[in-house]
């Protein structure tokens, strides 16, 4: 693994890309554009359906054409039903999701930055053994650990609290590996030495020399941990039973379950679930469009040799 590029844009800028002949209208070009057009429709179809469905009340949802407006325009009624259902529990879920993902994101990134930097740049006994352990464990599947972690935490009474979701999310072996590789290539040893000669302590050296140099990789790890926690389902599903602590994913699933089983007037929930799904993905799509550079950058790591 010689070069690791954090930023997809700079990869492309670095390699001299000859101008491609874009004016060719061969059969291949037409076929490939047809494929892209059809598949773009496939990928976007559920979003279009969700947007349309969010404007319908339950009657419209069941009786009108699925891909167009139908029945009364009920978007605002649906939103107000969403935010008042069960005393506004949706807002709590939204807040919980935000809390879990921000705290886990920043916490996991801080932990991974310290460890990744130490593995790359500091000499200490046992470093190689510890890093080899990390590499060996990187393939342990996290979902196989969820149930044992639950059983362990219930022994010490930590389940059904925010810590039951946040603490396990702080562990990110892949993030440590990534930041080690990045720190190794991008933090210059001479600058570390210079800072030490100037009398800076090790933490000061880390903060003022290493952290700025690692910034693109840190943003990527932060972004991926935050999204992973926001989207996480299995861990909070198992850990939490108090619905005031649920994140959006677990909360929406409980609604969906009672709506599809149809118990206790659950069927009336369908329009609320649709509106709730729409509201839950809007922040993600905005973040995704604004931070494209970092997304693609993060995915380049590991794929580029």
């Amino acid at each position, binding site marked *: 693994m010689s070069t690791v590029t954090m930023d997809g844009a700079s990869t492309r800028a670095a*390699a001299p890309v000859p101008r491609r002949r874009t004016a060719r209208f061969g059969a291949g070009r037409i076929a490939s554009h047809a494929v892209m057009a059809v598949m773009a429709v496939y990928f976007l179809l559920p979003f279009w359906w969700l947007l349309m469905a969010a404007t319908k009340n339950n009657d419209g949802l069941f009786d009108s054409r699925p891909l167009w407006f139908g029945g009364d325009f009920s978007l605002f009624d649906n939103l107000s039903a969403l935010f008042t259902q069960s005393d506004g529990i949706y807002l709590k879920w939204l807040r919980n999701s935000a809390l879990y993902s921000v705290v886990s994101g920043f916490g996991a990134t801080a932990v991974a930055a*310290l460890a990744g930097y130490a593995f790359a740049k500091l000499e200490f006994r046992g470093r190689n053994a510890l890093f080899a352990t990390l590499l060996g464990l990187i393939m342990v599947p996290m979902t196989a650990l969820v149930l044992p972690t639950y059983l362990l935490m219930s022994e010490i009474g930590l389940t059904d609290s925010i810590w039951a979701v946040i603490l396990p999310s702080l562990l990110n072996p892949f993030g440590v590996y990534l930041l080690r590789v990045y720190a190794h290539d991008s933090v210059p040893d001479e600058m570390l030495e210079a800072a030490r000669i100037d009398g800076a302590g090790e933490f000061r050296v880390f903060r003022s020399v290493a952290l700025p140099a690692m910034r693109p990789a840190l943003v990527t790890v932060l972004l991926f941990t935050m999204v992973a926690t926001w989207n996480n389902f299995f861990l909070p599903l198992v850990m939490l039973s108090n619905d005031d602590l649920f994140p959006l994913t677990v909360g929406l699933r409980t609604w969906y379950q009672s709506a599809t089983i149809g118990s206790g007037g659950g069927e009336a929930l369908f329009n609320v679930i649709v509106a709730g799904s729409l509201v839950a993905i809007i922040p*993600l799509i905005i973040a995704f469009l604004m931070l494209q550079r970092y997304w693609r950058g993060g995915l380049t790591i590991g794929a580029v040799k």
Partner: protein
Amino acid sequence: MRIRRGPGRQAAAGWLFVTPFTILLVAFLLLPMAYAAKLSLYRSTLVEGEVFAWLDNYRQALGDPELRRGVVRVIVFGVVQTPVMIALALAFALIIDHATSRLSRFFRLAAFVPYAVPVVIGTLMWGFLYSPRTGLFSALGNPDFLSSDWVLYSLGNVVTWQWAGYNMIVLYAALQGLPREVYESARIDGAGPLQIALRIKTPMISAAIVLVTIFTIIGTLQFFTEPLILQPLNPGAITNSYTPNVYAYHQAFSYQQYNYSAAISFLLGAVVFIGSYIFLFVTRRRSALR
């Protein structure tokens, strides 16, 4: 103020810096693994409480027809869905690497957006789309996508929709890292775009293809969220033992069989862990994770 200098100071700082990570690694990876291993060797009985049962839970797991059906199901799912999705992702990546147009930039975004959506919500949306009452397919006479014959394909579609774009971007990034001169010269030799894509570009990114395949297989073996979300739509087809993870979950939370659940989790973890290392070892020439 200079206190200690040189390697001694660095060693202390090094240990201090890796301490938080080491604590987390022990608390949330090694301890749960050890605890699951321990639990899996015990059996909880009404009369005697916890009794040491040697490998009884594992013996039960290996002979459990429900677990076996779940394992076969995820293997069949993986054998069909993984190649389809990776082939699609590779085709898309080759297309957007070759065609630079407004449509290809738009397509790149459109294919990747589903990855940003929580699996729960992606599955909910498809649940509505499959449903005969709210769905899209009334024109086709409302085929029952959630019947036991079709539900595995329907789940495969959800997974493909959600992850094909992610894999496409990984492969596309690898393609963008290739030196352009190689296929410039192939073009001069008269190779067409299709030949360049299949004979030159694809072999050159085999490391990335191996990588996305491993991650897909790992994900498939742990298949959980999609079947659990769609379960209430047809509990007869998506049973409590539909996949090994769903089975372990229901053993713990529907039947309070914690010891047996721990044994299944431990087995599943071990299979995934050993399997991915064997796969890495077999394909190590092509893998980026050397």
